[in-house]
């Protein structure tokens, strides 16, 4: 059924259709609306056979989900940013134990400095712990991915994180096609755990494992992710069969077949990227898009195949490996193998900095002209950065950085205003 609704509410409805049995969460922007909507559904009786627990922290949220999942319940939680970091130990735990928990991450920057706006730093910080990570491009895909996530998680007994851009998606009212309960029930069978705490058949979970077996257990987590690479395209295919639309899968391409320049990105920014690419195509420029829908496992071969004919690849990413550069681009590099095309990492949108078409035109144009640095920061204010660096050279006690930047912005904008008069 088509409806106009907020991204968070759409996701909450989709999760409810998946018949979760335990939902545990702690509020944090921009995730809160999702679990609030689910809490309402449980309280009102619209969502039956489900316990909603208002836990006291994210660490408790993931721990409760671990317990619930191990006891055989379909468990769901959601978080963002600081919340994801605060639960990090339990996030690794869920992965190591192979418990099929589904979690929404409403992507938001990480402090300090505290910032509530969108980027991908939170999800990227947990990229290598053994969770499957899916990134939604729009609200329709966000809700669809949750349905696929439960299927995938439970088939493999692996936790799945569905990442959706905070505010840009969670708080945007868009039209979505909400599936029916019958459709979801057709697609998602009842939870049949691969491991369960069952009084009739006692097992213990969480054994201490020494050097003799640890490598094997970790390898098996990796093997699960490799299996996911095989399963995900088929699940997307099946999804199309039941729901009548394309959603999920490993990657999405757009005008990429013959493109000399391919832009790689993930999440909601793909919309702006596609609009920009359309405008550039109109001007006769050979450019296309590769959207990464599944970031973990990394779709190595699928990405390699798309990039095979490209002369240059521009990776636009909302995260920064401090001290290295791009995170997504480092992953893309593993797919390039013998391909010697130019690879550009463009760090953009950190802490919610808008990514505009004007800036994308400029940066893609620079890449095509061979004028772009291999690592660049979209719309970074160099004047401000240089002032801070210069001051640090002059003064030993240069003070807290964020506060200095805020002061400098005020000072520099004052200077600029004066320049104009």
């Amino acid at each position, binding site marked *: 059924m088509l409806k106009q609704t907020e991204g968070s509410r759409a996701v909450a409805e989709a999760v409810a259709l998946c018949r979760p049995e335990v939902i545990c969460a702690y*509020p944090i*922007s921009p995730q*809160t609306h999702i679990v*609030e909507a689910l809490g309402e559904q449980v309280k009102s009786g619209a969502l039956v056979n489900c316990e909603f627990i*208002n836990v006291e*922290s994210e660490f408790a949220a993931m721990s409760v989900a671990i317990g619930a999942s191990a006891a055989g319940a379909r468990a769901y939680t959601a978080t963002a940013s600081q919340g994801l970091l605060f639960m990090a130990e339990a996030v690794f735990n869920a992965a190591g134990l192979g418990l099929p928990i589904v979690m929404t991450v409403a992507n938001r920057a990480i*402090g300090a400095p*505290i910032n509530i706006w969108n980027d991908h730093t939170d999800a990227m910080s947990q990229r290598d712990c053994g969770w499957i990570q899916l990134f939604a491009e729009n609200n329709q895909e966000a809700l669809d991915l949750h349905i696929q996530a439960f299927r995938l998680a439970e088939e493999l007994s692996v936790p799945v994180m569905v990442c959706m851009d905070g505010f840009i998606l969670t708080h945007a009212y868009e039209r979505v096609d909400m599936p029916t309960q019958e459709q979801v029930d057709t697609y998602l069978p009842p939870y049949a755990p691969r491991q369960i705490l069952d009084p009739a058949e006692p097992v213990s979970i969480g054994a201490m494992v020494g050097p003799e077996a640890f490598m094997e257990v970790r390898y098996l987590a990796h093997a699960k992710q490799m299996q996911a690479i095989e399963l995900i395209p088929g699940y997307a295919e099946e999804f199309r069969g039941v729901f009548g639309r394309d959603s999920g899968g490993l990657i999405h391409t757009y005008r990429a077949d013959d493109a000399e320049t391919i832009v790689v990105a993930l999440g909601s920014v793909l919309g702006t990227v596609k609009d920009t690419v359309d405008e550039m195509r109109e001007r006769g420029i050979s450019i296309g898009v590769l959207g990464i829908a599944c970031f973990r496992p990394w779709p190595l071969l699928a990405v390699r195949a798309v990039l095979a004919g490209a002369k240059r690849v521009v990776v636009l990413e909302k995260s920064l490996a401090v001290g290295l550069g791009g995170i997504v681009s480092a992953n893309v590099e593993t797919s390039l193998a013998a391909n010697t095309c130019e690879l550009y990492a463009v760090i953009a949108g950190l802490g919610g900095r808008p990514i505009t078409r004007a800036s994308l035109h400029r940066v893609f144009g620079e890449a095509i002209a061979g004028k772009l640095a291999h690592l660049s920061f979209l719309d970074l204010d160099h004047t401000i950065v240089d002032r801070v660096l210069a001051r640090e050279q002059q003064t030993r006690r240069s003070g807290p950085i964020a506060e200095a930047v805020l002061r400098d912005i*005020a000072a520099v904008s004052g200077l600029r205003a004066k320049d104009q008069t």
Partner: protein
Amino acid sequence: MTYLLKPKLHHPTLPANRLGYTRRDYEGKISTLCAGCGHDSISAAIIQACWELAIEPHKVAKLSGIGCSSKTPDYFLGNSHGFNTVHGRMPSVLTGANLANRELLYLGVSGDGDSASIGFGQFAHSIRRGVNMVYVVENNGVYGLTKGQFSATADKGSKSKRGVLNSEESIDMVMVALQLGATFVARSFSGDKAQLVPLIRAAIEHKGSAFLDVISPCVAFNNHEGSTRSYDYVREHNEAVNRIDFIKTRDAITTDYAPGTVQDVPQHDGSVLRLRKVDAGYDASNRVTAMNYLQQRAQQGEIVTGLLYVNADSEDLHHHLNTVDIPLNQLNSKDLCPGLAVLEKVNAAMR
């Protein structure tokens, strides 16, 4: 974060304290909280107490976590040191800062979510260590900043704005602080400035963990019928056990009290804390009877306020750790390394 600075215009008739500062000198930026939020009244009380005590602003460190309450240090003592930590971690960061520099007055400002939900462990351990600090919890029973979900201090049976009853037991932070050995424990109400300001003053003068639970209604999400943290409910159920008349020894005692109606608590610096009893039977120097009394009254739905417990012989973390009087961050290598000769002597003593 707000960047709205208050204009620094002082009315010439504003009274100045011993240091020559007016109350305005203890203010901060313009508050961005909801109009009527209890937290703003607590900020005003902190300003008043610090002005009255003539605290030197640069000798104060304000620390907070995350929440509407934790935003308030931006709105008072604009000339003091400030540190916004992450959600629930203020007590630990404060402990570290206090260890490194014992000379500052540590003012920890937190919320019930910040301290009783996500930061409960940090709260508990900072109290049981006896960190020398004033720990203020601005308690509204909800997570104001994330729009009004019940926190761990919400009373069982109280009703949310959406009409949902809280089914879980609440944490009474005053009881916890008492049990964990806090040497100064008080509860007050943001709407009772006459009670709150002297309590903050007394807490500042106290050496050791001073814990203040201040009921502070959230007008946006927890001020309705059925809430036990609304202005109306707290006014109706507030039972003050005593009032502080803070009296320094050099001040002449001018008021006459009926026998049995005052309790004098001598302080470290030789001053006397004079409690005017509202409940004649209440003994603020006895931890166990205080806990019993609080439990009994809580059962009857009363919110007991006042200085609930104070230990006149309190000690703090530095005392337990036997640290030197000089702040650790001021020790230089000469202090820390007594030299080869001393080492030889120490070694010789062990041979």
